């Protein structure tokens, strides 16, 4: 399953709920304000690194760029995709769950 999260992890619990319920091996795509979870040097970094052992993390590049976040500062296990890559992820997984 592909899980998308669009809320900042500092404001809402959507990412926590996603991490609690996503099956091991799922892909988690961070979009909109959730892209703040993808950056190193934050209080969340170790949690995301830990979760990366169970899940494949992706982040939407245009949303990083819009927010002034440097791809060089991404947690290294996270893959950047564009909108086309987002579509490819939706196609390659049998369903999509949006954690709003």
């Amino acid at each position, binding site marked *: *399953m592909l899980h998308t999260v669009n809320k900042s992890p500092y404001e809402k*619990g959507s990412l926590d*709920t996603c991490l*609690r*319920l*996503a*099956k091991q091996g799922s892909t988690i795509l961070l979009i909109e304000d959730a892209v703040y979870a993808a950056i190193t040097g934050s209080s969340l970094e170790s949690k995301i690194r830990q979760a990366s052992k169970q899940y494949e993390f992706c982040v939407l590049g245009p949303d990083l760029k819009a927010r002034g976040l440097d791809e060089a500062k991404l947690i290294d296990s996270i893959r950047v995709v564009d909108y086309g890559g987002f579509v490819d992820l939706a196609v390659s997984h049998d*369903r*999509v*769950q*949006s*954690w*709003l």
Partner: protein
Amino acid sequence: MCINRRAPYGTIYALEGLEVVLMGAAFEQDISVVYLDDGVYQLKKGQDTTDSSIKNFSPTYRALASYGVEKLYVETESMEDRGLSEHDLIVPVKMISGAELTELMEQQDVILNY
């Protein structure tokens, strides 16, 4: 499957999510409804909106069974976090763990979120 993660009244998601469930039932879909995170508050007993002038739609949950919606699931962890137990709920539900919900989600054709 419809996943409900929001409390009632503060936003319209609970009410309009319920309308989707009823429509799904009208289309004779095998529909599972999950209450998770603040969504569990939707099923809290004793809702009374008299003084706030918002429509109290909580009686509709009791009518779901008569529309053929019988698979109501509540996540145990969400209930425990909020100090709620099954006795606080307006309808009979199946309590499931997060791990069971994970598996249940994997069996769905479509997941809608409210």
